[in-house]
């Protein structure tokens, strides 16, 4: 679908109060929009905070995945490129990601059925995402975003304090908050940071982890439903999975990662007839030539350490339960 057609459809459905689901890839080349009533026909299933056409499994079944991580030497090439660009002043924060081959006995549909997350999407048996990260929410004419930055193993002694006191994490979070304030200010006014660095626990197949987020709010123009397609394009790709300043940082990402991300770190969302809720497509598995690939990564700043970032990328390869 072309950009213009996508925007036209989104604007029409939103203005008319027609419920729909949209999906957008990181490169903004494959926009998808579909009325909620036609999702099954298109082999698309979703659940947002328990609501949707994708059921949650009632019996707990452990899903085992065996990652075959990218060699640290290869990770280092990308990492060093990014670090030198940051020191040169071309980026303040960059989200560096890589694909990891995984082996499992389970299919994409079995995994998405078991995985527990606020935002779940099964897309045409091509990829699944069980994302904890909200992209934007719109209620009445208020728009909210919840950038997530900072992760720690919950079992580490004093995990919460360690995470919140960590200087590198704080600086990185500051940057993402300023970036998302900017992005909301492109489409709305009266920008406020409602909550700064709040901590949530996520259960995973490997144990619990803590994640830090902030909440930012803006006020949309009264007629936002007539122009929601344009609003979406202005906000994409999402700041939390690209970095700042965005245009130059995207250029460095293309160079450092060497391949397209596709739908990974894109977004999906649902308009239910009056409100919008949406997620960043992270915690993501795709099917490529019958093989499964888990994609993950993390924010790189001037203070980032190679081993730590590499470990964080691997730590994010999990199935939430």
């Amino acid at each position, binding site marked *: 679908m072309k950009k213009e057609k996508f925007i036209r459809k989104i604007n029409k459905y939103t203005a008319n109060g027609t419920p729909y689901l949209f999906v957008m890839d990181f490169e903004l080349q494959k926009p998808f929009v579909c009325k909620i009533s036609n999702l099954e026909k298109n082999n698309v299933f979703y659940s947002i905070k328990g609501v949707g056409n994708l059921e949650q499994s009632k019996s707990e079944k452990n899903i085992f995945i065996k990652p075959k991580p990218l060699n640290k030497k290869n990770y280092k090439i990308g990492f060093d490129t990014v670090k030198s660009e*940051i*020191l*040169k*002043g*071309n*980026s*303040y*924060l960059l989200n560096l990601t890589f694909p990891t081959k995984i082996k499992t006995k389970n299919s994409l549909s079995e995994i998405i059925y078991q995985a527990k997350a606020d935002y779940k999407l099964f897309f045409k048996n091509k990829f699944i995402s069980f994302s904890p990260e909200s992209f934007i929410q719109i209620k009445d004419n208020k728009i909210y975003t919840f950038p997530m930055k900072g992760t720690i193993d919950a079992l580490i002694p004093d995990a919460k304090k360690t995470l919140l006191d960590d200087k590198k994490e*704080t*600086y*990185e*979070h*500051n*940057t993402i*908050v*300023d*970036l998302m*304030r*900017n*992005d909301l*200010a*492109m489409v709305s*006014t009266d*920008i406020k*940071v409602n909550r700064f660095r709040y901590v949530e626990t996520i259960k995973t197949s490997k144990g619990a982890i803590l994640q830090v987020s902030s909440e930012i709010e803006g006020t949309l123009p009264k007629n936002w439903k007539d122009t929601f397609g344009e609003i979406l394009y202005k906000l994409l790709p999402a*700041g939390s999975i690209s970095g*700042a*300043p*965005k*245009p*130059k*940082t995207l250029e460095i990402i293309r160079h450092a990662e060497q391949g397209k991300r596709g739908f990974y770190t894109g977004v999906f969302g649902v308009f239910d007839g009056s409100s919008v809720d949406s997620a960043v497509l992270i915690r993501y598995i795709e099917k490529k030539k019958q093989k499964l690939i888990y994609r993950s990564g993390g924010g790189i*700043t*001037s203070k980032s350490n190679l081993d730590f970032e590499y470990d964080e990328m691997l730590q994010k390869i999990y199935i939430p339960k």
Partner: protein
Amino acid sequence: MKLLLIDHNDSFTYNIVEVLRHFTNCEITVTTYNNIDLNSIKNFDKIILSPGPGQPKDYPNTLKIIRDFYKTKPLLGICLGHQAICVEFGSDLYNMNDVTHGIDKEIKITDSSKLFNAIPENTTVGLYHSWAVDSKKLSTKISITATTKDNTIMSVSHKDYPLFGIQFHPESFLTTDGIKMLENFINL
């Protein structure tokens, strides 16, 4: 009052716009660097040069605008914009050992500046920079008006004209008195 905000492809530009929206006497036009029409600049009353990636030498038109207009229009450079002003007035930049991205620091106002009207001598600001201004070759027409504890130059102003540079980000939520500083510039 017509204000031109030149956006050096930055991702904090609309944080500046958001602050300026509160001043009803200010009509804002945002132009990205690549779309600058040098002939239209004369139609504006004041100019703000945004932050941005890279170095001033990557933005020759910004250096030209400073050169052509600093005597006739109040001009405020933020981060990269500040560095552009300093470079235009002779200074070199140096790559910092300790890059400060997303860091809040206290600065000390060392010389009076209309930009710092009614702002305490010590105030906290948000920083996003890996280059800083070297004072060695800086023109004697430029005064340094604020520094950090480790003597990094945080702001400058021209001795004769309303030309201001600030290394920190007044639009950042990390900067305590940022709104007041921008208000001071608007009310010049």
